[in-house]
Each structure stands twice: as C-alpha cells, then as structure tokens.
C-alpha cells in the first residue's frame, strides 16, 4: 500500500516525521484528510487535532494553527506549536482556558477579542486531545 511522507515542523523543532497512510488535519475550511497521491495543496490550519494514521494505529497531535502543504512527494505541516498527545501539559492548558474565558467575559468588545478567542480555541483543542488519549488508554 502506498504511503506518504509527513513532516510536522514547529518553529523550535521537528515534532514528527514518518511515512504514513493518511493524515487528517484541522483546516480553516474544515477537517481535511490527505491520502497518498493527493493533489498539491496549501492551506492554513486552525487549532485542533492532527491525526496521523499508520498501519492501523493512530497518532494524535495537537496543533495551534499553522499551515499544511501537500507536495507531490510529501506533506509538510508548518505548525505554530505542535505537541504529541502525551506531551500536553493538562494543568497549563486548563489554566489557559480559564484565563481566556475570563478575559472574554470581562471585555466583550475588546480589540484583543480575536486573540483571546484563538487562545481559547488552542486550550480547548489541547484538552480535547489529552482527554481522548487518556480515555483510550484506559480501555
């Protein structure tokens, strides 16, 4: 079966690089799945989970925005920040979520609303991924 090379690159390091079967990414226009031999594509990503399927197993990463580029030979994810599910600091994410919510509640029409909303989305994405991986492990 054909595989596709995936590289997840954050500014500070390479998070993931492997040959996989499929990638499911949180595009700005909705979830998108990339299989081998996909047409060249360039899209922005929102905060969410990046699922990578390989040989029946699934690896879940959380990205907080970035870009996805599909080239003929590989898929490159330029992430603002990316973490593997097991690296997520749940306490920090919860704190960030609480903070963002509080700030949104306080200044309804603040200039930074967009930034706070983005922060909230990031925190929620982190928590969701961490939660899912935890429950799966318990099963």
């Amino acid at each position, binding site marked *: 079966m054909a595989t596709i090379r995936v*590289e997840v*690159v*954050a*500014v*500070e*390091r*390479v998070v993931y690089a492997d040959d996989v079967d499929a990638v499911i990414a949180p*595009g*700005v*226009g909705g979830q*998108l799945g990339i299989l081998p031999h996909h*047409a*060249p*594509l*360039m*899209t*922005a990503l929102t905060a969410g989970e990046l699922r990578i399927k390989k040989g029946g197993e699934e690896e879940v990463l959380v990205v907080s925005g*970035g*870009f996805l*580029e599909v*080239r*003929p030979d590989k898929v*490159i994810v*330029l992430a*603002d*920040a990316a973490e593997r599910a097991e690296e997520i600091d749940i306490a920090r994410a919860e704190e960030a979520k609480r903070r963002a919510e509080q700030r949104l509640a306080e200044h309804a029409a603040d200039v930074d609303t967009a930034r706070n909303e983005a922060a909230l989305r990031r925190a929620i994405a982190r928590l969701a991924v961490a939660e899912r991986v935890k429950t799966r492990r318990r099963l």
Partner: protein
Amino acid sequence: MASIRTIRRRIRGIKNIVKITRAMEMVAASKMRRAQERSLAARPYAEKIEQVVADLAALPESGLHPLLQRRPVERMTVVYITPDRGLCGGLNANLNRRIASFLAEQAGQKVPVSVISVGRKGRDFVARCGVNVCAFFTRIGDKPSLIDTLPISRMVIDEYENNVVDVVYLAYSQFVSTAVQRPVVRQLLPVQPARIPKAQNVDYIYEPDAFEVLGALLPRYVEREVYEAILESIASEQSARMVAMRNATENGNELIQELTMLYNKARQESITKELLDIVGGAAALS
C-alpha cells in the same frame, strides 16, 4: 623592587581571577553549544517557510499584501539585538560601531530613525548616541522560546501595518563560527522573499485562497526571522565570551608564572643577604 609579601598577594589575587575566568569559559562553552543546537533545530522550519513564501510571493496578487508592499521611506526603525551583558570581548564594541555607522548613513539621508533595542548593552549605547529609542526589551535570557520573542515581532509588524514606519531593519550579530561573529544589518520589512528558484513547478490548490494563506504566513515569517536573529545573537555572545575568557585565563596563567619567578628570585636574594650578614657577623667575632 616589590617586597616578597606584595608579590605573594598579587599571585593569590590573580589565581582567584583565573578561577573565575576559567569557570566563565566553561559555562559559556556549554551555553554556546545549546544555543547552536537551538539554531540548528529551527533550521527545518526556516527552510520550509522560506520556500513557501518564495512560491507565494511569485504570484501576481502577492504584491498587494501590506507586508510585501514597498513604500517611500519616510521613517524607519531598527531592531537592534545585543547581549544584556559584557565580558564578551569585542562583540559589543563591534556591534555598536556597526550600528553607529548605519545610523550615521541614515542621518545623511535625512530619514528619521527610531530604535527598538533588545538587550541592555545596545540600549545603553543607542541612548547615549541620542537616538530615539521607542522600545526596549531586556532579559530575554539564554534560551528564549519563540513565545518569548513574539512581543518584539508583534510590535514591529503592528508599527509597519499602521504606517508608523516604512521600513524596518534588523541589526544583530551573525554567528559565523566560534571565532568569528559578524555584525549585520539587514532589512526585515517589507519582506524580501528569497529568490529561490521554484523547486517544483506545481500548481497548488490554495485554501481558502492564495492571498489569505500568504496573509497568515507572512507574520509568521517575520516572527521566525526575529527569533532566528535572537538565537544567532545568543550563540555569538556565548562564543565571544568563551574565547575572551579563554584568553583571560591564559594571560592570567602567564602572569602567575612571571610573578612566581620574580617571587622566587626575591626570596633567594633575601636569603643570600641574610646569609651574608651571618657570615659577616661570624667573621667579625672571630
């Protein structure tokens, strides 16, 4: 001639200094290694984003994006990145000389310049020169993450987008090798996409469209450039300090050797003198 006691005291003092310089050398060496690793780790992202920006900037509609637009230069800002600390050889002096000549050049062109300084040494120098410092950042530390550098890049991008400045330069010390650090000044905004020949001539599907992807990509590109410059500056600082401290240690050891020689000579002389006195006294008695 210096007395035996003062020589001994000096030797002890220099030995203590050498201990400190040797410790500083070792600390700087390990910090330098880590800074280099960080620079290296940032490289894959850098290469990829450069490639993508170059591809996108080649599109006809890209010229409309504010961060790529060239405007007549009426005001400029220099982001001046220096270490917070001294004791790193000629690094700060070289940087300051470079920025001074750059500022003099701009003054000749009658363009008002303001400086955003990152690092205490640069701020102090620029403030002394009487240049307008519109912001300064200190205590970036030895191992900043991208997030630590974001306030700097955000500020620069905001100023540029709001037409407060028309061109932004980045001045920092480029890490060439352990022995060589080169002060450089280069343009940060408007973004000058690297003229990389298109790797593959592929027609991408852009989602939502090319212009929006570019709009989201360019701020990241600028953020990464600032981050990279700061990493280079840290690597430069640490390697310059390591070399400076190694030289200091060597000079100190040399000095200790010379002084020890002097000390032994003085000691021997005084013994000889005493011996002569005794012999003379004995001769007088008999």
